[in-house]
């Protein structure tokens, strides 16, 4: 894959360099083919695009603003711009992808959306889109996440979705993915698997990135209006599976901006992972010497994932993006700092990106005077109860 083709259509193989592919049971192959064909068709259909754009605009609150973080910028000696995905309906970038996939499911005649969820944001978004389009929704969520993201569980209930607790393994996102896949295998006729990040079998990593591309495209135009240099020096986003980062990077991959993905230290597949196959795709995976996948550990339920989207692994290998880690303690401090300097309570997930920016700016890793675009992937309401004890 040549440089200019970065973040483009990965073709029928769904490969991003060595990564990606479609490692699923034979039972799911026809469904994956069907989704790929439907997505190619829809994505090339101006009618579909219009419908999506309309919903994102009149329903989900796009475009989201670009907020200059004046006070924090001053403290850090940089220009920090926040892309405000926290202001979307349901409170995170997840809605961009879900509205797209739900429209696709409807177009395909499916009656039900299946989803895995970690922080609950993707689950809430899925429950939301299902209600909006009159579909049913079944959301798989690890028991541990159900405990720490109770607000989102209740939201899903109010929205009429069925939340299925997953009691296997680490009882977090990884296991919810397994369970959702299993369930999908069994109900593929009437159910559409609405995957929440740039992972899973082809065409998901590509399709989800395309649905999230709107973040990067909006931000690119907003930066052009806001910054003398038009393009920021850094483009930073947190990485769970990597969808908000992929959507953001997609808008800047062909610029001079340095792309930085920030992982939770306890779930840093790009940093500590080895190549492997999980949940239908080949990528970097946290695993022990024997190949058993490890449990991720992060204060942010949405980053508690031992893999990373295949395209990120490819961007890393090629050096186009770099991946950094931050600790839980840095993240909580960053969350509070942003709240107290800018009045924005960001999600713990998003606070990872911020924690890195703070550390890098304060240690000279980001040169003074640099311009930084940071995607604030979601709002922190869901986390307030769980960080109460950490304050």
């Amino acid at each position, binding site marked *: 894959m040549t440089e200019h083709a970065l973040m483009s259509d990965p073709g029928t193989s769904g490969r991003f360099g060595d990564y990606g592919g479609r490692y699923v049971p034979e039972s799911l192959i026809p469904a994956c083919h069907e989704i790929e064909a439907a997505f190619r068709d829809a994505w090339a259909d101006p009618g579909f695009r219009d419908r999506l754009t309309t919903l994102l605009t009149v329903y989900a609150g796009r475009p989201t603003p670009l907020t200059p973080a004046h006070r924090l910028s001053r403290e850090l000696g940089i220009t920090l711009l926040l892309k405000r995905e926290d202001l979307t309906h349901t409170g995170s970038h997840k809605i961009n992808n879900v509205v797209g996939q739900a429209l696709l499911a409807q177009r395909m005649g499916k009656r039900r959306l299946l989803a895995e969820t970690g922080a609950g944001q993707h689950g809430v978004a899925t429950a939301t889109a299902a209600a909006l389009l009159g579909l049913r929704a079944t959301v798989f969520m690890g028991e541990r996440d159900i405990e720490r993201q109770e607000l989102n569980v209740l939201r899903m209930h109010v929205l009429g979705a069925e939340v299925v607790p997953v009691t296997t*393994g680490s009882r977090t996102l990884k296991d919810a993915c397994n369970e959702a896949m299993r369930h999908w295998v069994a109900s*593929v006729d009437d159910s559409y698997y609405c995957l929440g990040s740039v992972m899973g079998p082809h065409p998901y990593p590509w399709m989800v990135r395309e649905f999230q591309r709107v973040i990067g495209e909006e931000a690119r135009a907003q930066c052009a209006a806001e910054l003398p240099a038009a393009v920021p020096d850094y483009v930073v986003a947190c990485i769970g599976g990597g969808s908000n980062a992929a959507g953001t990077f997609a808008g800047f991959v062909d610029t001079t901006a340095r792309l930085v993905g920030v992982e939770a230290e306890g779930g840093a597949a790009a940093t500590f992972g080895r190549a492997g196959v999980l949940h239908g795709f080949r990528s970097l*995976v946290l695993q022990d010497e024997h*190949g058993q996948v490890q449990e991720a550990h992060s204060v942010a339920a949405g980053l508690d994932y031992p893999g990373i989207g295949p395209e990120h692994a490819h961007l890393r290998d090629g050096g186009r993006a770099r991946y950094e880690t931050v600790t839980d303690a840095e993240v909580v401090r960053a969350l509070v700092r942003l709240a107290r300097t800018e009045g924005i309570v960001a999600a713990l997930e998003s606070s990872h990106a911020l924690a890195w920016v703070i550390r890098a700016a304060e240690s000279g890793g980001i040169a003074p005077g640099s311009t930084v675009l940071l995607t604030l992937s979601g709002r922190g309401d869901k986390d307030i109860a769980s960080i109460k004890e950490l304050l």
Partner: protein
Amino acid sequence: MTTSLEEFLTARRAAGRRLLVPYVTAGAAPGWTDVVRAYADAGADAVEIGFPFSDPMLDGVTIQEASDRAIAAGTTVTEILREVTALDVGVPLVAMTYGNLVFQRSGAEFCAALATSGLRGLIVPDVPLEEAGDLADAAAKEHLDLVLLAAPSTSRDRLRQIAGRSRGFVYALTRMGTTGERGEVPEQAARLGRDLKELTDLPVLFGFGVSSPAQAAELARHADGVVVASALMRRLLDGARPRELGEYVASIRRALDGAVDREPDEHATLPRHRRRPDPQDQVGPLPRG
């Protein structure tokens, strides 16, 4: 050259026998190799050995739990291979695991290791046709049969490709869904069996949800035999000894043998005690490679 999995099964089928492949998760219980022996003694035509993986996407709760136990007990690929090398049960052993274990170093290395330990086949449910190319080549080089899966959702065209590319047998999924026991034999299984039989001479074995001798017998009518996994693993997790697992396999063996040429609606009234069939009556034991 030694007998391959495919040759072994084909020969047994040629002798008019319904094929039976019981499964065990390596390391799920201490002395699991005795389970393999008991299966063989009870009339298995091959034994499928699960290499436990942390995230077994296609497996239901029973095999997940067996895998978790095995991993918790420290089971590793190296350790399994060491134990398998010492096993000689007269029927071929087939590895079943997930892509992440297979590709740890490379498919070629994994296949070589299996072959060295005497395994004759490999099943990787999350490596479908498109992703199986290199692995199939590597397996072939090691005279290891890479068994592909076919599902009720698979198109006829694709079935043809799978049948063409699979070695050893074709693993036909009885239904959409994960492993685990189920009551009925779905109509779709019957159709898949018929389609595959039309397309290939390879043995076609049903797997997933085979949960009673009667069901095994009925399924076998539509193909060449069955793989039995969860029903056995549940018993193992519940504390069954190798001998008891062997007895259960024997009961399936009897049902399969009795089922030959019988109509499906008679199965429910199959006599309980039939002569225990001797595999040697049909095809000789597998010589060690």
